Structure formats: structure tokens, C-alpha cells
């Protein structure tokens, strides 16, 4: 609408008014001519014409593009009204802004993690084929697959047009001219890996067919991040020779920055070489390959699922001993990545919580609007008597709600910007998380807009409908003298306050249960002594430590040197640090016939040097520990933990019993159980204890292990001495991470501290918002009842009677709301335990404590208005209005 046409239209409206005015005047003249007195004639003419305003409005609407003009008018009017009452406006806008900001901020995580940007061409037809381990409690259907299965399954080209394999979690050392040796994680991928995704490198080339053959496999592709960080974004890096695991590799290309799969963070890729040994039955035990496949044209996910289920059963039949009950599953790529990343549940809980916070904010604003509408009853009655239809009035009131919500949305987005910065800083507890960029993207903007509109509807529809149900006559006449506000308004207020209390209580209980559960886990006894312990990871590469005698030699030297570092008491080596995850293997007990292959025993397998138990502080309960004589020439011996004895020997004496572990490439000898040690938690962040078996390093050396130093001084102060000691042994060997055991445990908490902090913050926000809501509504109703209170006081009511009355009213609502909230919260512990793996939701004590807090807050919010009511002066109250 241009300025000119606006002017022009204004003139036309004036013309219309002139016409109508003349019309009525002429009719009046005529009536006077017929002998009617002038005053009466004018009134008659006016009455005959009807509602001038309405006729004018309808005539004007002829010119208006579908009521846009009246919407603008409504918005202008709404803004004027809001500016007139800044207190109300600021409260409502800030309340909604907080609600919208927490929602938009949390949604930015959803946008980043659950709507991930997928690389390549047509990601919708990409699927991930994974192994199903029915015995696993955690994500049983997202396990990597073995090489023989990959070789068999990739041959099936009916449902998949291509299948690529990736060994995602390899660690190695990168060195080269001018490069410090660095330990990094990388992936070994089949040469068709990049083509299957349909991505091409930003620089150079990807792998070509045949580069998975030994001898041609010394090429690598750099990730964009590594290229920037280590090679200074040098475009001439293509063709350069670098050292990976002490061998020369040629840099073939660099991938673009947006080639990133949620949860996988390889720094570089090498070809995956599969040799004859990878096709043997024994190789089936080593499941480390993630299989990415593209569906053949016209094939649906369901068809692929059916096919893979069949192939999985085929493998079971062909290799019952190894494949057991293992099967195969198919998921779409985004589905798999999100599932595997496992952040979905936490995000769902957080989004539910912030959704409730928004509801509470909306209830507050609805209460404010309702309160305001009562004060505007007279204005609305006048407008309706002047011909405004109910729809028109509702629209005007809704417009006000929308304007408030949009202002709230604007302020909320501003807050979201900072919220996202805080969240991003907090989301850096591991590489995979830090790799995901959280930003105020389009998704978040759209979400914020939708949330604003939803909250506009939630907060203003009910008050607008209520307010528009105005009886013109009674409202115009009875205005002011009414003793209290109408029953209907009261009912709605009770509903709002009750609902707020119920939601807030529900949120508080839920958050407290989760926070308590997490803190119980955090403070659990892990079963070993984790202070004054320095740890470091080492991976002995095949180039220099090809055979086990070299590995043993290195470990001997390492322990010898590390022990000489001043401040070090004892030194041990273990394939896995205690309470840091486990490597599960199947095994057999001598003399026990397994009913069928489906009943395979599994156990966590750890390889340790003899000092391990002393260094970790794990007490021996029975039998003996390992000694230096338990070496390759001696009979195989193992130690087990209590849980093992409990589960597999029903707590009977296991000493002297023989077991055989299904360990890839290990001699299949029977091992004798020579000792029982006490239990250690499998994960520091979980209450679980799994059956464990310990093997002696000298009898089964491994290339990848952790070093543990028990120190008399602050462990981290030993880091540099440790680095020197290792450099003396091998200059090119990088240390993976040098951390105190306490830091390892801290890092294993992953997002838990952030998660509980967020939950706590939102719960407190909900509590504050609902306190404000209760206060506002009770204070308002006391204000409305000033007149009534005045009468009561004048008739002899005591101050204490009045305050008791107000408190009772407030308490009644609080009690109803709390009861509903408590009922809603009852099934929460069960729900949480089923969705949060490993969480033990503690304490029913949470319920009464939170209830008490809620009631105290409700009492305080009611107390202020109640006190004020007592100080009402009967004479002013009665004169009031």
C-alpha cells in the first residue's frame, strides 16, 4: 500500500461520510416537512438509517483487500493498547520470551543432532547394515559387522546397488617431514566408500578400485579438519608422502568440510585391505566394520530388511558356533546415525521439559490477559453495542495475543543467540559432540516462529473467547457495583493456577529424580582406587611390533622405565582401564555341555600385567594373582571376578575349573581359573557389573593397551617424565592421551553434568514462572475483591479471618494442582529407568521434598496478597469505584 493510495482512500472514506450525513439530514427535513418536531425527526431519520458505523464499515470494506486493512488497524490498536500498559506488556513479553528462548535453544540441539546435514547424493536411499546381538542390552541391533559377513552380504546386489565397509575406530600415529608425531583416529574404508555416498574430494582424488590390495594400499585421504590443522590448508599436499604408523603413505586427496557423519570423526581415511585371513570362519569373531549401502533403484527399506534377515539366518545356519543368535538389521542412514549416537532420549526429555516450561509461561500470559480482559469489560461492551460483532472483538483480542507472542518471540530469539553460545561451549565433552556445530539456523528460526504462534494461541484464545462473551446490557449497567468478579472468570483462574502448579510440580519431580539418579551414579563406589593414578594409551603398530615377542619386550621395558620415574610407586598395563567399558567375548566351561549354541556365555575379557590388581587397588578374594612366571611357556591361567563366579558357578568355588575364551587369533587353549578378585563397575557412568575374566599379558599380548601409574604425587605432574621415558624407548611412538584416572572418569560422564545442569535450570525456571503466575492471579483476585473485603471488614470480620480466607483459597488451588502433578509424576521412575540405559532412579524421598517446596512457594506467593487484603481500609474500599 503506497502512501498516495492511502491518502486517496482516506478521501473516499470522507466522501462516504458526507453522503450518509446528507442522507440522514434530508430524511429528517422531510419528516419535519410532514409536521414532526425537529429533534424527533432527526432521531427517527437516524433510527431508520440504521447503524451508521456499520454501514460505513461495510462500504469501506468493499475497497479493502481481504480485510488486510482492518488487520493492520488491529495491530496498530493492539500496539497502542500495549504501550499504554507497559507493566503488563513487559511481564507478558518477558515471560513468553523466556519460554520461547529455552525452547529455541534446546531445539538448536535437535536441529544439529537429529536433523543432521547428510553428505552426498540422495542420502535418503542410503542405509546402514549392522549386526544384531540379542544378548546385548545396549543398542543390540547397531553392532558393526565382521569381514566375512561384509564379503558375503556385499555380493547380494538385488537390494543394494553398492555396499561399502568402514573400520571406523582405528588409532594410529601420523608423522612426516616437519610434522610432530601425533596419535589420531582414522577409518579404513573399502575403495568404493566415497562413491557409495556420492561425495567427491575437495582436492585430489578418492580411492580407486584395487587400492585395497596389499602393496597398493599406502594411500590416504585427509579430512578437511586435519588438512586445515596439520597442513595449513596447503593445496599442494596432494601427492605428498606422509608417515602413518611408521609407513609411507601418499596423500591422494582431501575431503570437503561438509563430509561428516554424526558420531564418526575419523581424521583421515586409508583403504581397507581384506586378505584371505579375513575370509576365514575365525575372522567372524572380529566385528568392526560399519556397512554403508545404497538401496538398488525401486527397492524399499522393508525389502532390504527382509533380505538381510534372511542373510543373517543363513550365516547362523552356516556357522552356528560363532554366529549363534547374531543376525543382521538395516536402518536408513539418518536413522542409524541418530540411534547410534544415542542422544535422542536425552533430547526428547529436555524438549518435553522445555515444552512444559512454555506451557507454564503461556498459562501465566493467559492469566495476565484474562485479568486484563476483566478490566476491559466495559470497553468491550461499548464496542459491541456500537456494532462490533463477536468475531471482530475476538479477532482484536487475538491480535493482541499474537503481537505479544511475536514480541516475545523476537526477544526470545535474541536470548536464544546467547543460549546457543552457552550450550555450544558446554557441548565439547567429546570429539563427536564437539564436531557438531550448533547454530541459529533456519530450522531454529522456523521453530521459534511456530512456537511463538502456538503460544499466542495457547495464551490468548481462551481469554479472548471468554471476554467476548459479554452481555452488553448487564455489563454496561452493573459495571463496578458487583461485589466480586464473575464466577466464570474465577473458574478459569483456578484452572490456570492449578494447571501451572501441576505442571511445575511434575517438572520438578521429574528433574529431581533424574538429577538424583545421575548423582547416585556419579558417587557410586567403583570398586577400585582411582585417585593418584596416571593413565596413558598406547598402540603398538604392526610395522615395528609385528610379533608378540616384540610387544612383550616393549611392555617389559616400558614398565621398567616408568617405575624409575620419581614419584611413581607401581606400574601396570591393561588392555582396558577399569570402569571404562569392556570387550565382551564368548567362552566355554569345560565339562559343561551347552544345550544349544544360542546359550553362549559371554564375559568381559581384560588382559593385564601382574601388578594391575595392586596398582588399581582391586583386592584378591581367593586363590592367587598372576606372577611373572605366568608366561607363554607356562599353562594358561585366568582370574575372574565375583560376578563371574555368581553368574556362571552359582557362587560355588571356581578355582581349578577350566574355561576357553573365543578370542580371535588366540591359541584355543583351555585356561585354569586360579583366583577370584572383587568386582569393579563395568562403566563409571553405570551401576552395572559384568562378569569379567583377566588374562596375563605375557600369555596373550595385545598391541593396544593403557598404562597405569600409581603415584605418590599429583599424577598429572608425571606426564612429561612419562613422555620422556617413552621417547627413550621409541621416538616415533605417540601417547594417545595422558590423563589422571579421575579425569578419565570425569570425561566418561559425557553430557551428564550438562544434562543435569540444564534440567535443574529448567525446573527452577518452571518453579519461578509458576510462582509469578500464582502470585499475579491471587493478587489480582484480591484486588477484585477489595470491595467485598471492605464490606466484610465493615460488617465486623477480623483481619485474621480475611487473610485466612485468602490463604485458604490459594491453598485449595495449590492442593488440587499438587495432587494432579503428583499423580502425573508417579510413573516417572519406571519410565526413566526404561529409557535411560543404566540409570537407577533413586529415592522416593524426592516426592515429599519437592511437594513441600512447591507448597511453600505457593504459600509465599499467596501470602503477599493475603497480607495486603488485611490492610484494606473499609471506607476507601466501599467508596472505591
Amino acid at each position, binding site marked *: 500500500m503506497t502512501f498516495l493510495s492511502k491518502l486517496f482512500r482516506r478521501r473516499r472514506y470522507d*466522501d*462516504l461520510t*458526507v*453522503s*450518509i450525513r*446528507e*442522507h440522514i*439530514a*434530508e*430524511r429528517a*427535513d422531510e419528516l419535519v416537512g410532514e409536521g414532526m418536531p425537529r429533534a424527533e425527526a432527526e432521531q427517527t431519520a437516524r433510527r*431508520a*438509517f*440504521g*447503524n451508521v458505523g*456499520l*454501514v*460505513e464499515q*461495510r*462500504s*469501506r*470494506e*468493499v*475497497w479493502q483487500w481481504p480485510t488486510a486493512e482492518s488487520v493492520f488497524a488491529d495491530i496498530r490498536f493492539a500496539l497502542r493498547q500495549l504501550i499504554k500498559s507497559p507493566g503488563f506488556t513487559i511481564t507478558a513479553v518477558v515471560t513468553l520470551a523466556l519460554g520461547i528462548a529455552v525452547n529455541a535453544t534446546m531445539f538448536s540441539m535437535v536441529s544439529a543432532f537429529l536433523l543432521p546435514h547428510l553428505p552426498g547424493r540422495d542420502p535418503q536411499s542410503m542405509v546402514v547394515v549392522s549386526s544384531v546381538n540379542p544378548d546385548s542390552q545396549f543398542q543390540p541391533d547397531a553392532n558393526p559387522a565382521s569381514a566375512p559377513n561384509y564379503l558375503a552380504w556385499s555380493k547380494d546386489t538385488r537390494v543394494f546397488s553398492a555396499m561399502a565397509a568402514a573400520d571406523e575406530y582405528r588409532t594410529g600415529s601420523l608423522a612426516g617431514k616437519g610434522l610432530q608425531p601425533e596419535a589420531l583416529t582414522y577409518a579404513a574404508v573399502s575403495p568404493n566408500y566415497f562413491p557409495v555416498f556420492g561425495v567427491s574430494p575437495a582436492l585430489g582424488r578418492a580411492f580407486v578400485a584395487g587400492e585395497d590390495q596389499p602393496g597398493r594400499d599406502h594411500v590416504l585421504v585427509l579430512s578437511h579438519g586435519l588438512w586445515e590443522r596439520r597442513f595449513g590448508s596447503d593445496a599442494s599436499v596432494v601427492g605428498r608422502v606422509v608417515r602413518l604408523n611408521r609407513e609411507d603413505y601418499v596423500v591422494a586427496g582431501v575431503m570437503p568440510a561438509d563430509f561428516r557423519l554424526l558420531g564418526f570423526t575419523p581424521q583421515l581415511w586409508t583403504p581397507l585391505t581384506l586378505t584371505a585371513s579375513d575370509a576365514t570362519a575365525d575372522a567372524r569373531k572380529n566385528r568392526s566394520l560399519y556397512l554403508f549401502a545404497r538401496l538398488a533403484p525401486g527397492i524399499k527399506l522393508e525389502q532390504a530388511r527382509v533380505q538381510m534377515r534372511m542373510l543373517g539366518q543363513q550365516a547362523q545356519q552356516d556357522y552356528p558356533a560363532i554366529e549363534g543368535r547374531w543376525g543382521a538389521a538395516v536402518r536408513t542412514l539418518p536413522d542409524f546415525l541418530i540411534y547410534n549416537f544415542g542422544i535422542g532420549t536425552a533430547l526428547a526429555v529436555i524438549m518435553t521439559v522445555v515444552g512444559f516450561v512454555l506451557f507454564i509461561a503461556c498459562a501465566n500470559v493467559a492469566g495476565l490477559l484474562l485479568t486484563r480482559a476483566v478490566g476491559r469489560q466495559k470497553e468491550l461492551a461499548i464496542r459491541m453495542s456500537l456494532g462490533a460483532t463477536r468475531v471482530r472483538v475476538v479477532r482484536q483480542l487475538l491480535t493482541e495475543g499474537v503481537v505479544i507472542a511475536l514480541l516475545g518471540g523476537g526477544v526470545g530469539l535474541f536470548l536464544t543467540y546467547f543460549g546457543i553460545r552457552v550450550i555450544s561451549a558446554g557441548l565439547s565433552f567429546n570429539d563427536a559432540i564437539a564436531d557438531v556445530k550448533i547454530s541459529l539456523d533456519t530450522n531454529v528460526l522456523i521453530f521459534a516462529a511456530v512456537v511463538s504462534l502456538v503460544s499466542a494461541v495457547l495464551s490468548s484464545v481462551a481469554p479472548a473467547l471468554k471476554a467476548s462473551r459479554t452481555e452488553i446490557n448487564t455489563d454496561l449497567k452493573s459495571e463496578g457495583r458487583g461485589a466480586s468478579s464473575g464466577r466464570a472468570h474465577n473458574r478459569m483462574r483456578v484452572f490456570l493456577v492449578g494447571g501451572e502448579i501441576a505442571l511445575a510440580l511434575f517438572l520438578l519431580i521429574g528433574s529431581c529424580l533424574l538429577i538424583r539418579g545421575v548423582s547416585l551414579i556419579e558417587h557410586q563406589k567403583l570398586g577400585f582406587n582411582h585417585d593418584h593414578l596416571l593413565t596413558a594409551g598406547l598402540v603398538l603398530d604392526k610395522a615395528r611390533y609385528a610379533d608378540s615377542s616384540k610387544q612383550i619386550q616393549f611392555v617389559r621395558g616400558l614398565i621398567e622405565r616408568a617405575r624409575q620415574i620419581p614419584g611413581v610407586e607401581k606400574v601396570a598395563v591393561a588392555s582396558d582401564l577399569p570402569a571404562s567399558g569392556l570387550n565382551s567375548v564368548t567362552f566355554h566351561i569345560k565339562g559343561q555341555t551347552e544345550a544349544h549354541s544360542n546359550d553362549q556365555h559371554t564375559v568381559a575379557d581384560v588382559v593385564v600385567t601382574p601388578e594391575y590388581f595392586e596398582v588399581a587397588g582391586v583386592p584378591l578374594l581367593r586363590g592367587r594373582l598372576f606372577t611373572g612366571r605366568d608366561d607363554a611357556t607356562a599353562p594358561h591361567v585366568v582370574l575372574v571376578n565375583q560376578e563371574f563366579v555368581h553368574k556362571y558357578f552359582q557362587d560355588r568355588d571356581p578355582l581349578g575349573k577350566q574355561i576357553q575364551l573365543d578370542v580371535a587369533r588366540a591359541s584355543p587353549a583351555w585356561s585354569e581359573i586360579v583366583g577370584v578378585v572383587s568386582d569393579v563397575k563395568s562403566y563409571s557412568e553405570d551401576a552395572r557389573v559384568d562378569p569379567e575374566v583377566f588374562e596375563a599379558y605375557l600369555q596373550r599380548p595385545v598391541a593396544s593397551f593403557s598404562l597405569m601409574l600409581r603415584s605418590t604425587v599429583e599424577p598429572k605432574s608425571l606426564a612429561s617424565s612419562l613422555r620422556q621415558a617413552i621417547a627413550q624407548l621409541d621416538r616415533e611412538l605417540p601417547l594417545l592421551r595422558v590423563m589422571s584416572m579421575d579425569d578419565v572418569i570425569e570425561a566418561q560422564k559425557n553430557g551428564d553434568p550438562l544434562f543435569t545442569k540444564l534440567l535443574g535450570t529448567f525446573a527452577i525456571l518452571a518453579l519461578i514462572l509458576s510462582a509469578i503466575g500464582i502470585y499475579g492471579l491471587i493478587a489480582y483476585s484480591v484486588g477484585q475483591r477489595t470491595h467485598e473485603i471492605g464490606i466484610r471488614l465493615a460488617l465486623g470480620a477480623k483481619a485474621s479471618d480475611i487473610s485466612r480466607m485468602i490463604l485458604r483459597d490459594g491453598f485449595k488451588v495449590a492442593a488440587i494442582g499438587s495432587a494432579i502433578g503428583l499423580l502425573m509424576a508417579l510413573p516417572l521412575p519406571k519410565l526413566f529407568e526404561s529409557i535411560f540405559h543404566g540409570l537407577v532412579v533413586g529415592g522416593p524421598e524426592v516426592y515429599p521434598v519437592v511437594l513441600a517446596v512447591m507448597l511453600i512457594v505457593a504459600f509465599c506467593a499467596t501470602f503477599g496478597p493475603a497480607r495486603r487484603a488485611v490492610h484494606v481500609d473499609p471506607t476507601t474500599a466501599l467508596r472505591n469505584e
Partner: protein
Amino acid sequence: MAKDSDRRDLFPGALELMILQSLRLRPMHGYALVKHIKQVSGDLLQVEEGSLYPALQRLLREGLLDSEAGTSAKGRPTRIYRVTDAGLRHLEQEVSSFEKMFAGITRVLAVAKT
């Protein structure tokens, strides 16, 4: 307002038709238009002001009418409405289509009587 059985609602387009036809005779202001239609129809048709002014605005918008500042018989300022060329053309079209419709209705009614 009780519905008068003698006086039925006009069908769509009838009011516009009568406005155009009346203004074709001479340009008029709003009140004169109401009186004119009432007189000519012998009090059978009564135009409601509530529909007249929006109808005038519609015709103005579509360019079938023109309006100019003028004075009423009593010398008060008002708007005088006149039919434009487009209005005349529109009127002729409408009249002929109305006549056809009336002819049709009359015939059907006549057959039904016998």
C-alpha cells in the same frame, strides 16, 4: 426484525441493476436514489440504506459508476453518482440476461398453470 411476507429479498445483482437504471435517467445523490426507486416501484420495493451504500461503493470500485461533489436539493454538500460508459454497457448486458431469465421463468410458470 420480523420478515414481511409481502416484501421479499432481492436476488443478487437486482439492486445494482436498479441503481444503474435509475442513475441512467439522471445523476442522483444517495437519498434521491432511495426515494426514486421507492416511488417508481409504487412502494413495492424499499431499498435498505444498509445495502445501498456498500452497493454504490462496489459499483464505484468496478468503474461502473462515477461520483462527484455536488449539493442536494436543500443545498447540502453530498456526492452525486452517475453512470459511466462501462456502466451503460454492463447495464445493457445485465438487462438482456435478466429479460431472458424472466422470459424463461414466465414460460415455465405458464406451463405449470395449465
